[in-house]
């Protein structure tokens, strides 16, 4: 069983069952279907960050770099007025993002601790200003996606990305796969060494493991899934702009992951939904919503030391 904790075995099925049926009770074109799709995509992004920060011990403040990269890569790679295949481009984007993550990883993983935070931040800011100032890629306005990709596999098409409901299910399917993937990886032999490296890097190296290679592999995995989330987000709103790359996004994702329970993986879903839910609630309540939002986040972090998942585990484990 890849879900070791009782809490996961209860929360994960409940979430996906509810998520599966929610759109059926809503108007297909309703605002909420789109909004929830966005939150689900964000959950994928936060989950990939949670893996890196909470499980591998790589505290990155530049994760948005890959989110933006996923979006920009699609616009740059695909012909402007031609419908391309979604799966083919997913493959391209993941491969290219992985290669970029590999190159960046080789550089940034030479540092640890506070230096790692700073260098990841610096590299993502470099990308931000590059796209912000580039005429070719639309500068601060970003770029539009004029043609939505089609999704046929061997001539069979069952998914229309222009249909919000279809898109919703694609996002949900992706989130589920991401969750299962991370859980499988963490349970694997590779995962054992990753866990050991997080707990005690010096000892792990003294036992003969090349911890750099393990961290690099994790960095590539996490970054690639982050890019995939960015790609989905760009598709949903048919544009990409430099805010995708902003450090605020990296920071917000980190807050969501901490709110959900750092390192719990499934907690990323809880954290993202809670954060977005709170934001939606306060935004509609008052103009000064940021003030309330900040207070609420601080309260939750103080009261729930190990995040929402940690609190649920305290209630549900034995």
């Amino acid at each position, binding site marked *: 069983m890849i879900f070791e904790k009782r809490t996961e075995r209860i929360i994960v099925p409940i979430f996906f069952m509810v998520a599966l049926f929610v759109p059926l009770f809503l108007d297909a074109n309703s605002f909420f279907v789109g909004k929830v799709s966005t939150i689900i995509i964000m959950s994928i992004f936060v989950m990939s960050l949670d893996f890196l920060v909470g499980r591998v011990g790589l505290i990155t403040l530049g994760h948005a770099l890959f989110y933006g990269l996923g979006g920009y890569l699609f616009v740059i790679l695909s012909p402007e007025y031609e419908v391309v295949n979604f799966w083919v481009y997913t493959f391209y984007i993941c491969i290219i993002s992985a290669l970029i993550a590999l190159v960046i990883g080789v550089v940034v993983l030479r540092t640890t601790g506070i230096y790692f935070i700073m260098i990841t931040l610096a590299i993502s800011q470099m990308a931000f200003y590059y796209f912000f100032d580039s005429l070719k890629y639309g500068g601060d306005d970003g770029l539009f996606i004029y043609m939505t990709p089609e999704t046929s596999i061997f001539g069979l098409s069952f998914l229309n990305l222009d249909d919000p409901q279809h898109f919703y299910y694609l996002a949900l399917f992706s989130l589920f796969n991401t969750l299962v993937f991370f859980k*499988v*990886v963490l*349970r*694997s*032999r*590779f*995962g*054992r*060494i990753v*866990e*050991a490296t997080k*707990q*005690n890097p*010096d*000892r*792990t*190296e*003294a*036992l*003969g*493991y*090349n*911890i750099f*290679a393990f961290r690099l*592999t994790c960095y590539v995995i996490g970054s690639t899934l982050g890019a995939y989330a960015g790609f989905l987000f760009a598709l949903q709103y048919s544009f990409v702009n430099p805010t995708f790359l902003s450090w605020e996004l990296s920071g917000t994702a980190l807050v969501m992951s901490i709110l959900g329970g750092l390192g719990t993986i499934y907690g990323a879903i809880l954290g993202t939904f809670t954060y977005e839910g709170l934001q939606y609630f306060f935004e509609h309540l008052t103009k000064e919503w940021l003030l309330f939002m900040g207070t609420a986040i601080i309260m939750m972090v103080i009261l729930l030391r190990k995040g929402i998942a940690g609190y649920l585990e305290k209630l549900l484990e034995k």
Partner: protein
Amino acid sequence: MANDIVLETEALSKHWGGIKALNDISMQFRDRQLHGVVGPNGAGKSTLLNMLCGTLKPTSGCIFHKGQRIDTLKPWRFVRRGIGRSFQKTNIYPEVTCLENCAISAQRRFGGNFNLIASRHSNKLVRKAAEQALAQVGLEDRTYTLAVEISYGEQRQLEIAMVLATNPCILLLDEPMAGMGHEESQRIIKLLKELKKTYCIVLVEHDMDAIFELSDQLTVLDNGSHLITGTVDEVRADPRVKEAYLGVDEEQAA
């Protein structure tokens, strides 16, 4: 072939700025022998050990393992050549069981470390090797206990078990008896007597009785320099050693 030289240092030095932590050390370590290293605080014992396992790079000089130069290699390469070390400060994985601690050490040699899919529990050989290492140090009844929950003495034993699980041929032990009670020390001494029949052991230790009882060869370091290497009796008889550090001991004995 009991007297094969497996590990050798040649004019090994480590300088920190102007301070000479180790100066011009040439030593030979033989298979199936226990080589004790003693010296007053700051003599450079730990520095020597850290260089022998690759975590510190020498300022000058070389290290040879079975005739091949290894001092330029990455630390994890040392382990793959069969050089395992234990730490002076207990250095284990506190949040997992004793078995898992040893499984982490053992897994490397069975491959599949970059297998992202197969469950970590699927390889029975890893488990067997881990159990064997625990049995070697006598921790069988702690198999499923979290490492943080066992006693300090047991953690020291686990520390050695983890090195054994890497299947080394050379053991570098940094004060395995540090902070232990008499009874626990006796258990480790018994264990080391058993181990030195099959491994080359380099032992850094402050417990003089233990060192005298165990060592086949004994080296005294003083102030980063090599003072003498010989059998226990030779070292005890040497006037320079008495002067540097054992003198007080001898007087008390007399």
